[in-house]
């Protein structure tokens, strides 16, 4: 169990990185509390697996350091870092039984057989594997195998952190939910730090206390699921999290206020003097039809169960909004009103007026 600190961490796969794009992972500083549940969320190729492999020790960073508590582990191999990892494709030792699979990490470390037996049975119980302990591991379904992979991490008492690399990729959809809840439940029972890599926002939000959103090798925002939803620091976060994602509309700036087609839009923040591309971000949840406001033309309505997703064309671009079942939807011309508290100005993608950001 340990607090994880990443200091000025950078990584490039090529030998002499010159340009910004050469870095698979751009410089980052992060502190992860002991016993927390974290998710690394981002699209494919954003550097999240690179970051995970740096933490587990399968990769050595080109620059910066990694600390577990106060010990520098940057150059330590994985076996000395005391971490456990669950991979995208389940790894089980085919010729062994489920029991022997779970016992394997302990036996490799020379733990007494009596203790091994106690730990294996405990972990099997936690992972619902007790009934299959005597079976060959190769005969289990994908979710069973992932439980074994996870179990091999849980049996060890010396584990600093458990890392998950998109562990639900090969799991059937109806079992994903079950396994996800299982992980959440396990986290409440074992005090380990858990880091979960995924490109699926639902997985990230249901699993983690704090989500680290990444894009093209860079950490864009770290926050609780609520923070990410309510106050995205970057249009990418707004877009990536939420379904449908945040509306991003082009706007003009005058004295720090935003205007679309001459209409002033009330916003929660003010833009600074920065001369960048200005945009307005507002989630579909905070847009509604009104007698006044921005002019728009409804172009598409799709039914999404309790809500309808309405798409409307405006001078600022396409706007999506949610209308509750049975709510009136104008047939063509309409006016839209944004909730000022949830409407924000972004400059070059970043939330305007935030300290430390351009």
């Amino acid at each position, binding site marked *: 169990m340990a607090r994880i600190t990443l200091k000025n961490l950078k990584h490039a796969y090529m030998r002499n990185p010159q340009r910004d794009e050469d870095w698979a992972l751009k410089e980052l500083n992060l502190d992860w509390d002991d016993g927390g549940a974290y998710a690394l969320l981002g699209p494919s190729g954003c550097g999240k697996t690179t970051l995970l492999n740096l933490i*587990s020790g399968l990769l050595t960073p080109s620059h910066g350091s990694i600390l577990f508590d106060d010990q520098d582990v940057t150059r330590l*191999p994985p*076996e000395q870092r005391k971490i456990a990892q669950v*991979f995208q494709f389940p*790894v089980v*030792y085919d010729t062994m039984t489920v029991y022997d699979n779970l016992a*394997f990490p302990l036996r490799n470390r020379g733990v007494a057989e009596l203790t091994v037996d106690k730990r294996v049975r405990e972990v099997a119980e936690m992972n619902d594997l007790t009934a299959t302990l005597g079976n060959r591991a190769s005969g289990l379904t994908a979710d069973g195998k992932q439980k074994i992979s996870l179990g*091999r991490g849980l049996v060890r008492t010396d584990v600093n952190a458990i890392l998950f690399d998109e562990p639900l990729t090969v799991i059937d959809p109806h079992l994903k939910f079950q396994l996800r809840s299982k992980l959440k439940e396990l986290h409440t029972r074992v005090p380990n730090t858990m880091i979960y890599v995924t490109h699926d926002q639902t997985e990230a939000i249901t699993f983690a206390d704090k989500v680290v959103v990444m894009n093209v090798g860079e950490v864009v925002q770290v926050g609780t699921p609520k923070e990410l939803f309510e106050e995205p620091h970057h249009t990418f976060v707004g877009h990536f999290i939420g379904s449908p994602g945040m509306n991003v509309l082009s706007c003009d700036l005058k004295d720090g206020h935003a205007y679309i087609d001459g209409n002033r839009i009330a916003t929660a923040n003010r833009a600074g003097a920065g001369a960048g591309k200005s945009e307005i971000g507002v989630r579909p949840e905070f847009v509604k039809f009104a007698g006044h406001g921005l002019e728009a033309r409804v172009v598409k309505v799709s039914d999404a169960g309790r809500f309808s997703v309405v798409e409307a064309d405006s001078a600022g671009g396409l706007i999506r909004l949610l209308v509750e079942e049975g709510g009136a939807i104008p047939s063509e011309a309409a006016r839209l009103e944004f909730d000022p508290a949830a409407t924000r100005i972004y400059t070059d993608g970043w939330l305007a007026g935030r300290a430390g950001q351009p």
Partner: protein
Amino acid sequence: MNKTVNQKAWFFVLPVLILVAFNAIVPLMTVVNYSVQETFGDNVFFWAGLRWFEEILRSPRFHDALGRQLFFTGTILAIEVPLGVIIALAMPRKGPWVSVCLVLMAMPLLIPWNVVGAMWNIFGLPELGLLGKTLNTIGFDYNYTRQPGDAWFTLILMDVWHWTSLVVLLAYAGLVSIPDAYYQAARIDGASSWAIFRYIQLPKMKRVLTIAVLLRFMDSFNIYTEPSVLTGGGPGNSTTLLSIDLVKIALGQFDLGPAAAMSLIYFLVILLFSWIFYTVMTRGEEQ
């Protein structure tokens, strides 16, 4: 659902049936035909029943040849399979050396079999061959044309040189198909190199090794060209393997009946052993 019965489908398998018939069934039946008859000149045949089979099975000559054959096959399997696995494990998995290694490994397999025999025949000559001359110079009394022990040594060395590559290539194919995640997981689990071999590499190589053992078993049991060029079965009968003996009976003595009976017994022995190997090595896979 009702299945449509369409007899025309038979026409699609007809070409293969014809091919197999002329390739395997007809020649095999000819041999069966010979094995139950006595032949004289001018194509005169008499019914002999199972007499040839009894004669072969009781003959010490056959027993000796079978014994030598089993010794040969057992020895080369015991050397080539572990050696092949060791070489495959030592080969690089990535980088420019991979192709170099693969080409070097494939080389012995590309040489015509009688050339292999001729090469080793010259290589081992005590007065001028590199191997023979060197061994004699450093004090070994080595002469494969006179001493049975030396003949066996050369024969086995030749087969190991010629065929270990096949095991290497098959084992290597098995090794490179193991995803990296297995090695990463094993490192995290604190597994030793032996544990990685025992629980990851060996199980993943099992299928290809089964094929390697079966191929090497059948090929070495059928081996004719190389030993016949190298030693011709000598000195005396000391390296007369089953196939060499068979050719002596069939073409040297023109005893078609006994030769046919021996062929069939030979065939059944190979079939039996292959079945045993296959059953033992794939046992437990279906659990």
